[in-house]
């Protein structure tokens, strides 16, 4: 937040106060109105395209206290970017303080808020039998409720949202019109008399006639049914998380055989029964974004199918009145997973849900308010007492990032983002707006959603691109679409190297100014297009915003079968062994090991030829493939990975048990220098792992040692490079740094060397945060 408070003026008691940021549709004017009355000030407040304008007259001290209150205690959903004051020499326009009509001209600058979890006041109302909103599932006010999910275009007025078709009843209208009311200009204001309604259908689309829909839905969950529930940003599939039959059915129906399911519990007390909740985690859970927070599970058992691997579980708290009412009478958490089949985007439309979820769910809990913009649940994890955003969507988007001052530029930039965990980014007037997580662009619905959201964001932020920024990878559908847009609109196109973008995103989030001295970065991920068509992913880079130089990397190894090597970890294991050793010799030497018995069942001869002849076997310095190879040798998803990063996740889970015990037992590695480039060579590591496997050492111990080796090698090389380049700031980025063990260990060691370590917190460290860079 930037405050530009002018010095107090002695002679004049009138001030014009300009407030910029997310200040409309968040109860800002009623807040100012109350405040002005409290300080006995005269004047007026209104909305315009630049935010909120206040003209105010009164005692100097009172005025200053008033301004201080604005900056220190704004309404919960407001986000003030700046407050600018100037002196007013005119006389007061009013005898009291008034809210006056919005003044609009063409230059839109005000910001749209993110959807927010139900506030305490609204919760109190829905639980008060005497309140007119008792048990009404769409209760909201200027402090909470749907925002981005219901907006079609700006300005954020009811007529531009999916609340347009619900005409307010006289009582709601009165609340809406009354400046002192919490629902003054609450665009989504409604009640049971005039707002959206809910109903239940069975899977054959027959409406279930009941008086109390929520009570009935609760009973259905208790009776082991799966219900598809329409929420804020999409449908969820919900069932009793303590019932194995229900959860296993859901897994089967969804075709989701490995990834853990997200859970929702009615309160933090209940979450504590199932998981360890630290104070940072508690804050994250209770925050208005109500994200899924990844926690360490405790002994108390949920259905086994909730999480098939590891003991991490993701919990969130109810964030709509509907969720709160539904969970109130349940003695256990529910699975609350996105309403989709397998890797499809979640459904947002009733008919679409009927068509696509019919074979997964037993019942539907519908409502009749349209979801305009699909918003997945956001996902957060706390590592090293710092928040890490894994997926940024509902509750956070479309919050803006104020870029360092030096970024004030006339050019408006549209960054198209990555392929698989796409989000895009608009840069305008020194602000960066990163879209919500869009998803996998190869999916048809996601691709359409991507194009729809691009248009929407341009409209919401009055944005017109001058420059289109794309990834080096010309195969990305985002890059291709960017090229198409640039061509049809005759715009400049700039291509940015993948890992450079990861670094720049982290620098931008941390507010490093343009022209800041170079930082040293370790960017570890699955894959990104490097320079000259090489595939990178285990990189040590010296980087500024404008330039990036590669100083070191993992030993490039073939990916036999290209994309197939991403799905089948054993291929990477074979490629590494083939590279570092004479495969036949090493096989004979360690023939008892499971991995070699497994590999013998595979078509190694053609694979070997493919590697030798470079047939669809591109070389890659990827860290993700490195994890695949070591997971495979330990027998973790050797044959097939069920989801992206599974091998690395399993290896991390396995290593966690022995991680602390083995902290001094890293294996050896080699740092080779090849023409001014450092290359991490893992031959010694492979030998040590094979030996320990032959000695039948506990695999947890081996996994922990593998992690320590990667950490040690990274720290070793980073320190060496930081001395050579005289850099003190280290950026760690890329999807691999979602690995808690690795991130904690490398960060702590670097900090012991006195280095300043930066990692992404607000934006995802994975490709979801790429567009910002």
């Amino acid at each position, binding site marked *: 937040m930037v405050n530009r408070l002018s010095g107090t003026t002695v002679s004049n008691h009138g001030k014009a106060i300009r407030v910029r940021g997310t200040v409309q549709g968040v109860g800002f004017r009623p807040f100012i109105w109350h405040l002005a009355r409290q300080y006995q000030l005269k004047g007026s407040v209104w909305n315009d395209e630049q935010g909120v304008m206040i003209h105010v007259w009164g005692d100097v001290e009172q005025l200053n206290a008033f301004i201080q209150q604005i900056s220190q205690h704004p309404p919960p959903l407001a986000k003030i970017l700046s407050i600018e004051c100037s002196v007013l020499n005119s006389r007061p326009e009013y005898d009291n303080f008034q809210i006056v009509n919005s003044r609009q001209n063409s230059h839109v600058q005000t910001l749209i808020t993110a959807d927010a979890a139900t506030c305490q006041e609204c919760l109190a109302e829905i639980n008060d039998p005497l309140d007119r909103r008792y048990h009404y599932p769409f209760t909201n006010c200027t402090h909470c409720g749907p925002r981005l999910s219901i907006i079609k275009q700006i300005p954020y007025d009811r007529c531009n949202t999916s609340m347009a078709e619900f005409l307010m009843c006289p009582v709601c209208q009165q609340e809406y019109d009354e400046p002192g009311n919490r629902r003054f200009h609450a665009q989504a204001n409604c009640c049971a008399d005039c707002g959206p309604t809910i109903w239940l259908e069975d899977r054959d689309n027959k409406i279930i006639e009941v008086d109390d829909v929520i009570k009935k839905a609760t009973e259905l969950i208790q009776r082991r049914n799966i219900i598809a529930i329409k929420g804020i940003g999409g449908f969820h599939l919900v069932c009793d998380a303590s019932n194995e039959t229900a959860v296993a059915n859901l897994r089967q129906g969804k075709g989701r055989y490995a990834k853990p399911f997200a859970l929702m519990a009615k309160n933090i007390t209940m979450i504590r029964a199932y998981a360890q909740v630290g104070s940072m985690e508690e804050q994250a859970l209770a925050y208005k974004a109500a994200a899924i927070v990844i926690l360490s599970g405790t002994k108390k058992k949920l259905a086994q199918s909730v999480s098939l691997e590891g003991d991490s579980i993701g919990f969130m708290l109810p964030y709509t009145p509907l969720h709160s009412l539904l969970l109130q009478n349940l003695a256990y958490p529910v699975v609350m997973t996105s309403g989709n089949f397998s890797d499809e985007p979640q459904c947002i439309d009733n008919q679409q849900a009927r068509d696509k979820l019919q074979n997964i769910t037993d019942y539907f809990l519908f409502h009749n308010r349209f979801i305009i913009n699909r918003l997945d649940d956001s996902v957060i994890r706390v590592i090293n007492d710092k928040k890490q955003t894994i997926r940024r969507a509902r509750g956070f988007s479309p919050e803006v990032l104020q870029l360092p001052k030096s970024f004030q530029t006339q050019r408006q930039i549209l960054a198209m983002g*990555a392929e698989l965990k796409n989000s895009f980014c608009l840069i305008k007037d020194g602000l960066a707006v990163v879209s919500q997580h869009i998803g996998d662009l190869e*999916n048809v619905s996601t691709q359409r959603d991507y194009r729809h959201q691009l248009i929407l964001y341009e409209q919401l932020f009055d944005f017109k691109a001058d420059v289109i920024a794309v990834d080096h990878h*010309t*195969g990305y559908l985002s890059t291709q679409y960017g090229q198409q847009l640039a061509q049809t609109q005759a715009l400049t196109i700039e291509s940015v190297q993948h890992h450079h973008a990861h670094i720049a995103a982290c620098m931008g989030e941390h507010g490093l100014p343009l022209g800041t001295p170079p930082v040293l970065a370790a960017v570890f991920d699955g894959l990104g297009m490097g320079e000259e068509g090489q595939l990178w992913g285990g990189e040590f880079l010296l980087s500024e915003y404008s330039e990036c130089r590669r100083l070191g990397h993992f030993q490039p190894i073939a990916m036999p079968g290209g*994309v197939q090597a*991403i799905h089948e970890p054993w291929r990477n294991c074979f490629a590494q062994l083939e590279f570092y050793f004479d495969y036949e010799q090493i096989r004979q030497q360690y023939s008892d090991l499971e991995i070699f018995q497994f590999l013998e069942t595979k078509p190694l001869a*053609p694979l070997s030829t493919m590697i030798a002849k470079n047939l669809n076997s591109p070389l890659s310095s990827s860290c993700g493939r490195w994890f695949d190879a070591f997971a495979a040798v330990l027998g973790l998803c050797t044959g097939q990975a069920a989801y*992206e990063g599974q091998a690395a996740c399993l290896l991390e889970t396995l290593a966690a048990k022995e991680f602390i015990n083995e902290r001094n037992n890293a294996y050896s590695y080699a740092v080779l220098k090849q023409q001014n480039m450092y290359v991490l060579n893992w031959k010694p590591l492979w030998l040590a792992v094979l030996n320990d496997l032959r000695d039948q050492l506990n695999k947890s111990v081996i996994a922990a040692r593998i992690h320590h080796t990667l950490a040690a090698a990274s720290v070793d090389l980073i320190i060496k490079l930081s001395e050579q380049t005289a850099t003190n700031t280290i950026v760690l980025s890329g999807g691999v740094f979602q690995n808690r063990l690795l991130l904690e260990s490398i960060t702590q060691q670097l900090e012991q060397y006195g280095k300043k370590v930066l990692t992404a917190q607000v934006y995802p460290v994975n*490709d979801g945060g790429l567009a910002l860079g």
Partner: protein
Amino acid sequence: MRSSIDIKNGKVDLSHGSGGRAMAQLIEELFVKHFDNELLKQGNDQALFSVEAGRMVMSTDSHVVSPLFFPGGDIGSLSVHGTVNDIAMSGAKPLYLSAGFILEEGFSLAELEKIVISMAAAAKLADTLIVTGDTKVVERGKGDGVFINTCGVGMVPTGINISGNNARVGDVVILSGSIGDHGVAIMSSRENLQFETTIKSDSAALNDLVARMVMVADIHCLRDPTRGGLATTLNEIAGQSSVGMKIEENKIPIKAEVKAACEILGLDPLYVGNEGKLVCICAAEDAGAVLKTMLQHSLAKDAAIIGKVIADENNFVQMATAFGGQRIVDWLASEQLPRIC
């Protein structure tokens, strides 16, 4: 009388392209002998023939393939099939072909004869004549054994209007058989990849199949999914016709051994080339009759309806995957490099 050339042991030398006696002898004893038709025997620099009034099509294709001999065919048969199919995809009946050879010095005459015999057989089977030709020889190291260019002409029967921009929303997409055979056969034999079974190229002339198909219904588009495979062909047609397409992965015929090989190689069979398959787009009400005709033909025994033409401003080709997802089947950007991370 001069002695015959030694085809069994001889090699191509620079004199075979010099325009002199050696060249004449090669033409006479190899090309004229095997291609064997009256027009060629006239011995002129051009072939003279009469045609009926009507619409003609003309197409040319140069063939560069390694290895020259592969399971299911060779460069000779391939060079005939390629041009015959390009002509046939307009609905035309192919009439005459030309053949231009670029030979590398030192290339075995015995192998050349095998290629020529194979071309002659392919042309005969396709009911066309190779009526003119050309031979050039390049120095050792400047060619890859042999390159063959073929060019052909054909007549389009009245009433037939087949073009890539004729696909209409609601039309049906029919594929004549399994995909990927040719590309995988070539790659595995070129690189000597040891798969468990030998995969044969599907290289074949499709003009007879097309002649039968155009008799039963009004066909909107026909195309042979060669380089770039089925995915590229469908994207081309979608773009030309300004429509979208929706295909189903489960409906696309693919041989188990080709699928297995593609899995090992990490190739997407949708992008692998074919040389004896066609994609046909026609009105839904005609699909039954067309499919029935195709299924009765030996070259389309596995024909199947694989999808339909839909309205789509983005001209996406989308595929319902075997796992129940909807994936965009895009143009291939340069090589098949992994995009996911």
